[in-house]
């Protein structure tokens, strides 16, 4: 809504933005979700700056419980769990945003085009979507990794983005199908509006919360895929991620040894970030859809 230019002559752009902001700030779900996400994002951005050593440095006593010195305790080998956590959050956000964002972009482009154009264009795009959908992603990654030999968060995100878009494309295509037959799309066509503009300004705003939810799901999915890639040894060779922490904790039997501080922070971190994004999505739905607002 905020990206749309003047809705009417009497409400110039700032007024429209102010109205959306007004409803956004009054929405408890949106604000609560946003606060959680912002807190974690701030921890990811600021946290590493306050720590003088690296996340994998052996700095403290082994297997120490949380204390004033090591907030989240230390690992089996004396690494600071808090340092790992904030560095891990950083790479997790990065993979989520880049991978999820790329997948969302591809999914939207394919889904909108296929759904709106229909016919032969739809057939071809649908075929490509289905091919990518049934592609054994992990096997392709193994082969690609063996040939390319590049291991960084960026490459990981690129790979996740290129393989996880098909379901998003299918979902958006289905939604677009149902929306394009509505009369207001015809009315926009009668007003001489071009197809890309109709998609962006008529169809997409009607499913903005749906699109945001798609991104959230892709974000969460990217985080989880990244964790499993880390596990099979195809993650970034340098650094740490929340998934890597969980896997290390599992590998060194943290649960059996009672070292709850090793696996609870990364697990709770992933859950809190993805959960907060879900709650935000519900709130955004109410902001974007005037019918859900209380009058």
């Amino acid at each position, binding site marked *: 809504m905020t990206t749309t230019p003047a*809705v009417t*002559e009497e409400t110039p752009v700032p007024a429209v933005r102010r109205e959306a902001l007004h409803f956004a700030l009054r929405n408890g779900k949106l604000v609560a979700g946003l606060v959680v996400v912002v807190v974690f994002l701030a921890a990811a951005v600021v946290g590493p700056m306050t720590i003088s050593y690296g996340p994998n440095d052996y700095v403290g006593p082994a297997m120490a419980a949380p204390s004033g010195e090591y907030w989240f305790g230390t690992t089996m080998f004396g690494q600071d769990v808090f340092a790992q956590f904030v560095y891990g959050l950083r790479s997790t956000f990065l993979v989520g945003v880049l991978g999820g964002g790329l997948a969302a972009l591809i999914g939207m482009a394919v889904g909108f085009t296929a759904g709106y154009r229909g016919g032969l264009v739809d057939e071809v795009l649908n075929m490509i979507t289905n091919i990518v959908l049934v592609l054994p992603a992990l096997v392709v990654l193994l082969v690609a990794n063996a040939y390319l030999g590049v291991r960084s968060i960026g490459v990981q995100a690129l790979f996740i983005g290129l393989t996880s878009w098909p379901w998003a494309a299918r979902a958006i295509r289905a939604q677009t199908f149902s929306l394009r037959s*509505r009369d207001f799309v015809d009315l926009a066509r009668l007003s*001489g509006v071009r197809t890309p503009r109709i998609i962006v300004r008529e169809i997409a705003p009607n499913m903005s919360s749906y699109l945001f939810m798609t991104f959230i799901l892709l974000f969460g999915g990217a985080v989880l895929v990244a964790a499993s890639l880390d596990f099979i040894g195809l993650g970034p060779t340098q650094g740490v991620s929340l998934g890597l922490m969980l896997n290390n904790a599992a590998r060194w039997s943290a649960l059996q040894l009672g070292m709850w501080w090793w696996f609870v922070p990364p697990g709770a971190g992933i859950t809190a970030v993805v959960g907060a994004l879900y709650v935000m999505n519900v709130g955004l739905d109410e902001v974007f859809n005037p019918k859900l607002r209380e009058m």
Partner: protein
Amino acid sequence: MLRLDDVSKVYRAGAFGGRELRAVSGVSFDVNAGEVVSLIGESGSGKSTLGRMILRLTPVSSGAITFDGTDIRALRSPKAYYRQVQGVFQDPFSCYNPVFKADRVFAMIKDEYFPRVAAAEWRERVEGALRGVRLDPGQVLGRYPHQLSGGQLQRMLIARAVLLDIRLLVADEIISMLDASTRIDVLNLLADLRAGGLGILFVTHDLSLGTYVSDRTVVLRHGSVVETGPTDLVFANPLHPYTRSLLAAVPRLHARWDEEEADPGETPCPYHGSPEGARTRPGLAEAEPGHFAACSGCAEGAGAPRKLAKEKA
């Protein structure tokens, strides 16, 4: 101005597209400048499909629709076409994007066609158009579609079409959503526009409205024309049994259904009962100058037409 020549629309139906569904078959008529043509037919007779084809929203299967002599399929710029031809649809609720305010339909017109008009002047024009359809601008501007009534939304759509200064309006059931008092206002507005040279294709199932506004009438049944001609001729002397049953089905203020006069009985088929020389158009025989009627179904043995009046009683 607008000419339909043997226009058909065929849909593929069935699980594998094996069956064909003819929504419109072989329809031909003209709409001239300053003329109101009413397209009358029951639900599913193909009248809305025809309207959509004229508006280029649905492709034509066969035949040609020409506007000022150019086939509308061959038009390079639909935008220029829509500058001259506009439509108002049946269902005003679905014509508005529920996420945005209702007056966005005006902003869209301004963005596309009048980007250089000053905001204040545009506002004047919008308010003028709204007053033309008996709406209070202060009441409808800045509201969301779900806050307005169907009649208000419908009239805003008419105002939107008026803003463009068009030459042809496809009005698909535009009166059905309005209540009796605004109905006459809108009809009078259409009459004013017609006096200014606007051609109107008035799609309706309501015959009394059809007679009130139109110069010529096209009666459509199962996708094909059964009777067409000047409205006074068609209504004074309905030839096709279907037109007759439609006319008989119009409710009257002072008569009850059971007081209706008895069925006149068998009448000769307007097509096969006519002299050979009168069959000047495919499937249509000219009974009076400009008054054409199709076969009543005698050849196919389809039997007597449905008695609408009795069914509804």
